[in-house]
């Protein structure tokens, strides 16, 4: 299937979940350069994003850290799973730009350790199929892990290339991460390098207005994402923007808040470790000689929506921007006009190479989205289903003039 995507970088075309959180064994989930996920509470919207985020955290740190938010791996594995040993599996397929013929397939199987909490990487596979070429096995599992003995899967990096072949059996780190380190030293232009770059710039947001208002370190750590989930490191992100990018950010904010004229980050005075904060400069009327003046408004005095848009627009104006930008309930704290503008900015970013995946509960937001870009999540008899909106008869029975949000709230229950 062809999409409006002009660049040649990797984009995530599909995701398959097995026994992960709400998803027992749904069919392959197709993703687009711009995808809006909608569904009722508890249907499994977050499951999709969290699977990707689990992988992201495991690559940045390790599987234990990635599972910490669930207090171990036990609860992450779908409760319907009676099969022993207990595991979950995530499969991903990337293609390059519009070219469906070049595919990169990755799969990881994670066992529940014998202590019922520790994740154990049981199997991993990365295959690359260049256009018209022979499939390359970049990661292959030679021996699957054994959770009873707490033995991780034995994986071979570059299984088809004896000169670079290495064995890997770390219990909670992915061979993909190790492959990337080897790759960057030994050979440029390897698809693994592109994949590593994809994950390095992947961002997952569940923005917290409180955390967005707090002081943060002036610099992020090398393994941290461009912006952390709650937005606490926004001052550090703003520090990374050069003058031109900061100007572009102000222009973007002005489309929603016309009186904002600058974005500033405080400078640490005592030491480099001193936390910093950001502020916006606003032109406001006051009883002075000129009748108006510029006022600096620190983060903690900004509205919730203003903090959110500053964070998202800062990510979009960064160069290079995120490769994958996942945002939970994007409409939170935003007025209807700002929602429309935010969607335009995200669509524009998607055209420029950022894959966007957002969840929403808002029919108003959905009304601004193309039918093709909507993915609906439904929970039917305990099964979570991810279906493209356009493939659903309940949705397509309406006449052409009915916008997607109205279709969503009027579909058959």
């Amino acid at each position, binding site marked *: 299937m062809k999409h*409006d995507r*002009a*660049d*040649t970088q990797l984009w995530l075309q599909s995701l398959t979940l097995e026994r992960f959180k709400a998803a027992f064994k749904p069919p392959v989930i197709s993703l687009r350069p711009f995808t809006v996920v909608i569904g009722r509470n508890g249907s499994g919207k977050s499951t999709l994003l969290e699977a990707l985020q689990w992988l992201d955290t495991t690559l940045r740190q390790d599987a234990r850290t990635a599972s910490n938010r669930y207090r171990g791996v036990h609860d992450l594995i779908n409760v319907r799973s009676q099969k022993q040993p207990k595991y979950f599996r995530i499969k991903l397929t990337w293609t390059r730009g519009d070219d469906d013929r070049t595919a990169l397939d990755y799969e990881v199987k994670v066992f529940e350790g014998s202590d019922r909490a520790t994740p154990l990487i049981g199997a991993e596979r990365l295959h690359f199929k260049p256009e018209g070429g022979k499939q390359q096995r970049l990661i292959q599992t030679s021996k699957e892990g054994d959770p009873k003995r707490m033995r991780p899967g034995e994986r071979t990096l570059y299984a088809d290339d004896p000169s670079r072949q290495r064995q890997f059996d770390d219990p909670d780190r992915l061979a993909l991460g190790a492959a990337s380190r080897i790759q960057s030293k030994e050979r440029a232009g390897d698809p693994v390098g592109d994949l590593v770059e994809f994950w390095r710039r992947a961002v997952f947001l569940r923005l917290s207005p409180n955390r967005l208002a707090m002081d943060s370190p002036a610099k992020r750590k090398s393994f941290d994402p461009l912006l952390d989930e709650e937005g606490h490191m926004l001052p550090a992100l703003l520090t990374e923007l050069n003058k031109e990018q900061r100007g*572009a950010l102000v*222009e*973007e904010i*002005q*489309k*929603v808040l*016309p009186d904002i004229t600058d974005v500033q980050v405080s400078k640490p005075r005592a030491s480099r470790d001193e936390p910093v904060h950001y502020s916006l400069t606003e032109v406001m009327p006051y009883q002075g000689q000129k009748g108006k003046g510029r006022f600096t408004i620190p983060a903690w005095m900004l509205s919730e929506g203003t903090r959110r848009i500053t964070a998202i627009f800062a990510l979009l104006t960064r160069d290079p921007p995120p490769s994958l930008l996942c945002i939970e309930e994007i409409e939170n704290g935003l007025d*209807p*006009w700002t929602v*429309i*503008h935010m969607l*335009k*900015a995200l*669509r*524009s970013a998607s*055209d*420029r190479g950022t894959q966007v995946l957002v969840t929403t509960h808002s*029919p*108003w937001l*959905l*009304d*601004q*989205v*193309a*039918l093709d870009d909507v993915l609906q999540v439904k929970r039917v008899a305990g099964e979570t289903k991810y279906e493209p909106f356009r493939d659903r008869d309940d949705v397509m029975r*309406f*006449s*052409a*003039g*009915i*916008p*997607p*949000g*109205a279709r969503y*709230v*009027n579909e058959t229950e």
Partner: protein
Amino acid sequence: MPRLRVALFVEGSLGERRRDGGDWFEELWLKVIPGALGVRRAERVVPINKKHLVALDPAIQKLRSKTSGTSVGIDELIAAELRDRPFDAAVVAWDLQPPWDPEATPCRWQETLWLYEALASNSSLPPIWQRWARDRITELRARDVPSERASVPVLQEGAVLAVCMDPMFEGLMRHEDGVRHTLGLRAKQVKNWPTGWNTAKNPKRLLQKAIVAARDVRPMPDLVRKIRGDMETAAHEWGCTFLTPTNKVLLDHARSHPIAARLRQLLLAGG
């Protein structure tokens, strides 16, 4: 006879601010397009979207759950604008395809009928506006085929003239050479430059791809550096740029486009 005050209701939105504090949407429709197409200048322009039109669709009225997304109809919007700042006549211009479904094939004839039916029955409009709409719907319904037009409707007090920009306003700028010329890419090979300039259904997507491709050219063309947004975030600023008076190649194309011909016909007739 005093000159008629005409209000334009066109698809678009306010919010793209110019450096001088003005708005690019108003600049495009009140200055650039009248200059480019040689049509009269309207007094004001009001942004609408497709939902203001499809709100008139009986199918929307029958929905079990109404949503904020189903909006109010154009008739209500015209009545509210009249109360706010009076004008004598209106031209309503909408895109054919709804943004949520580029594959859809709405019937513009049906949409036109909805518009006049809604205007004719809206009691919050002044009587002269309702009367004109009633006469119009009677004339339209009397036709055996939609194209059987006896005469071009004339702008007069209470008149609302409709134009469907088939498929959308950006069609005026669907001209590869003109776009390349504007972007300063005439002789250059540009990676990811869009194809299908004569066949693509969605001219806005074509222009968007062209601008995105131009952004990757090094050195980046001055114009693309100057206008930071694209057809998603700065559509009206790009519209003003493409239709600038010095851009002869693109202007010649725009002037010969059926949308331009229809706008000229409506805005020049009468008044």
